[in-house]
C-alpha cells in the first residue's frame, strides 16, 4: 500500500477548457480528491436577456467551439417549442445529419488526437506523425470527413450558419449529398482500422457504480428531444429538466455540480448507450459486442469505447438519412412562423451528454429569461467522486504517484469534458 501521495495537476491537458486535479493521501488515508473547474465565466444567460429570439442560436453556438452545432440545435428547439414552430421533415433530417457530423468530428478528435497519445505514451498527436504516420493519416481523414459533413449541411463546422429558426436556410443539392455518401463509404475502411486498433488497447481496470442520465429513445437511438431517463428508473418529460439536473454550487469550482438519485450521475456516450443499447444500429451493436461493451457498464474509461460505437452508429444512420433524401423531394426546408410569447425547453444529446436550453420569450419575440445546462456540468460531480474511488483503489495496489497521476488525467479525459462550455 502506498502511504503518502500529493498530486497537483494544474490545467489538465488535451481537454477543452481549464480544470485542475488535486489529490492528497496521508498515512494511506485519502485526505482530498478534487475536480476543480477554474474556467472564467462568460454569463451567456445574462447576455441572452433582452435579445431577439432568432439571435439565440447564433449567440449560444459561441458557448462552445466543439459542440456549437449541438448548442444551435438545442437553442432552436427551445425557441421553436416556445412558439409552436413546426419544422419541415427534410429540415429535421438535415439537422440530424449535421448533428451526426458534429458527433463524428468530436468523437474522432477525442479518440484519435486526445486519447490515443496516452495509450502510445506520448504527450500529443504531433510525435505520432513520425512514429505512426498511418494512424495520423486515418485520423485526419476521418475527422476531415466529419468536418466536410458539417460544412456541407450547416455551412460551417464551428459555429454553424444555415441552421435557423423554422428549419434550414440552405440545403445541399442531391449531387453533393451523393458525393458525401461516397466519401463516407470510402472512410469505412479507416473506421474499421481504428476499430482494430481499439480492440488491442487495454483500458484501465476501474468501476464505480453510478446513475446514468440520457434522453430516452422511442424507436431509434435518441439525439434530439424526447423524454429524459435515468438508469435508476427516473423518467421525466423534457420540460421537467430541472428535476433531472438539480444544479448546485461547490466553492472550488466555477462550474456547478448536479445530482439526481445519488451523490452524482453521468451523462455522455456511455450513459446514452447504457440506457438505449437495444436501439443501436445493427452494425454499431456488433462493434459494441466485439469491444466487450454491454449494459450496464460502470467503467468510466469505457466512455471512450462507447464513443467509438456511436461513431459507427452515426455513420450508419447518416447513410440511411442520405438515402432517404436522395429518394425523396428536398424543397420544403423552412417554415414561416408567427412570433408569439411562450416558454420553450430544448434537450439535445451532444457528444458529451444531454444539453438543455430553456427560454422565456415575450410577445415581441424577445428573450426575458434563459437557462442553459451543459453536459460537463452534469458530469462534474461524477468525475469528482470517481477520482476519490480511483485513488483509494490505486493506493491499495501501491501504485506510485506518476501512475496515479496518469490514471487520474486519463479518467478526466475519458469524460471528454468541455470545461469552458460548462462555465458559460
Amino acid at each position: 500500500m502506498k502511504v503518502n501521495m500529493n498530486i497537483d495537476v494544474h490545467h489538465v491537458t488535451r481537454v477543452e477548457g481549464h480544470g485542475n486535479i488535486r489529490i492528497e493521501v496521508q498515512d494511506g488515508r485519502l485526505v482530498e480528491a478534487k475536480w476543480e473547474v477554474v474556467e472564467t465565466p462568460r454569463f451567456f444567460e445574462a447576455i441572452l436577456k433582452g435579445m431577439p429570439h432568432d439571435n439565440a442560436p447564433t449567440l449560444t453556438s459561441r458557448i462552445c467551439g466543439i459542440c456549437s452545432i449541438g448548442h444551435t440545435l438545442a437553442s432552436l428547439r427551445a425557441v421553436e417549442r416556445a412558439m409552436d414552430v413546426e419544422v419541415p421533415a427534410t429540415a429535421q433530417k438535415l439537422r440530424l445529419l449535421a448533428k451526426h457530423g458534429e458527433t463524428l468530428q468530436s468523437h474522432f478528435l477525442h479518440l484519435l488526437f486526445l486519447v490515443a497519445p496516452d495509450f502510445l505514451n506520448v504527450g500529443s498527436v504531433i510525435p505520432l506523425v513520425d512514429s505512426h504516420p498511418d494512424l495520423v493519416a486515418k485520423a485526419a481523414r476521418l475527422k476531415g470527413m466529419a468536418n466536410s459533413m458539417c460544412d456541407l449541411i450547416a455551412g460551417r463546422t464551428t459555429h454553424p450558419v444555415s441552421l435557423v429558426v423554422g428549419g434550414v436556410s440552405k440545403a445541399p443539392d442531391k449531387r453533393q449529398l451523393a458525393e458525401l455518401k461516397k466519401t463516407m463509404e470510402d472512410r469505412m475502411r479507416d473506421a474499421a482500422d481504428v476499430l482494430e486498433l481499439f480492440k488491442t488497447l487495454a483500458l484501465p481496470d476501474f468501476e464505480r457504480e453510478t446513475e446514468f442520465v440520457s434522453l430516452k429513445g422511442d424507436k431509434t437511438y435518441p439525439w434530439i428531444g424526447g423524454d429524459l431517463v435515468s438508469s435508476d428508473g427516473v423518467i421525466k418529460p423534457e420540460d421537467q429538466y430541472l428535476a433531472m439536473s438539480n444544479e448546485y454550487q461547490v466553492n472550488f469550482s466555477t462550474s456547478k455540480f448536479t445530482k439526481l438519485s445519488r451523490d452524482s450521475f453521468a451523462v455522455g456516450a456511455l450513459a446514452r448507450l447504457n440506457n438505449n443499447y437495444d436501439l443501436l444500429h445493427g452494425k454499431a451493436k456488433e462493434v459494441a459486442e466485439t469491444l466487450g461493451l454491454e449494459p450496464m457498464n460502470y467503467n468510466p474509461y469505457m466512455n471512450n469505447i462507447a464513443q467509438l460505437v456511436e461513431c459507427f452508429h452515426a455513420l450508419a444512420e447518416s447513410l440511411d438519412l442520405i438515402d432517404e433524401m436522395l429518394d425523396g423531394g428536398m424543397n420544403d426546408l423552412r417554415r414561416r412562423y408567427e412570433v408569439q410569447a411562450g416558454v420553450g425547453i430544448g434537450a439535445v444529446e451532444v457528444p458529451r451528454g444531454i444539453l438543455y436550453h430553456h427560454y422565456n420569450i415575450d410577445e415581441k419575440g424577445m428573450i426575458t429569461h434563459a437557462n442553459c445546462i451543459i453536459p460537463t456540468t452534469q458530469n462534474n460531480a461524477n468525475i469528482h467522486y470517481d477520482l476519490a474511488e480511483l485513488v483509494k483503489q490505486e493506493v491499495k495496489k501501491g501504485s506510485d504517484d506518476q501512475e496515479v497521476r496518469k490514471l487520474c488525467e486519463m479518467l478526466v479525459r475519458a469524460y471528454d469534458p468541455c470545461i469552458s462550455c460548462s462555465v458559460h
Partner: protein
Amino acid sequence: MKYLGIDIVKPRLAVFDFTGCEGCELQLVNKEETLVDFLSLFEVVNFREASSDKSDAYDIALIEGCISRQDEVERLKAIRGRVKILVALGSCACCGGVNHLKNGFPIEDVVRQVYGDRKIETEKVRSLKEVVQVDLEIPGCPVSKAEVERIVIALVTGAEIRMPKYPVCVECRQQLNTCLFDFGEICLGPITLAGCGAVCPSGKVGCRGCRGPADDANYESFIDVVVDKGFTEAEIRKKIEFFNAFEGPAKDTIASLIQKRIKTFNAFSGVRA
C-alpha cells in the same frame, strides 16, 4: 532538420487560450488535407488543448480568447514578456467577441443571475490589445483555417503578410449568391473585411461583421441601402454590436451617417405627405 547541409531551425510555436469557446484553437487542427504539413512548419511547444508538452521558450504565440479576470492579465503579460511575435487569434482576442456583450450589464447583476449571492471574480471583458502590445490580429468567429495557414506560413518564411482591403460583398458576389437584402435581411457584407469566403451570406444568413471593418468600406452606400430597405437604427446597432468588431471610428461613422440619412429620409417623406 537539414537542407543543403544547413541546419534549419524551426520557430517554436505556442498556443494559449483565455476566456472563450476554444473554437479558434480547434480550427488549428482542422483543414486535415494540409494539417501534417502545417504542423511540420514549426516546433509546437505549448498547445494545452491538444498536447501535454509544455515549455516557457517560444518565438510565436497564437492567443485565443478575451481577458476577463486578473489572473488572465498576469498570464498574458508573462507570455508577452517571453515571446517575439504575439498574434491575437479570432474575434474574442481581437475585440472581445460576443463575450463583450456582458459589458452592457452591471457586473453584480450578471453574477447574481448565475451564482446567486456567491462572490465570483470577473471583470469587464477586454481584448488582448487593451492589455498588452499585439503584433498581429487574425479576425473571425471562428478564424478561417485557410487564412491562419496563409498568415502563419508568411510569418515563418518572412514573407509579407497581406490582408484583403475589400469587403465580404466582393467574395459573396464571386460565389454568385443572391444579395441577402433581397431576402429581407440586414447583411454587414458591404462594410466587413473579406477573407472568410463569405461563409455566412453563402449559407443565406446575413453577415454579422465578426471580422470588423473593411479598409475600403463604402459606409454611405451601405446606410443608403439599409435605410431604403426600412431597417431601423436600433436594428443596425444590434447587428454591428454583436461581435464588438466595429468599436471605434467605424461605429461612430455608421451612427452619424444613419442619423443624417434618417433626417433626409424624413424630410423627403414630409414633402411627399
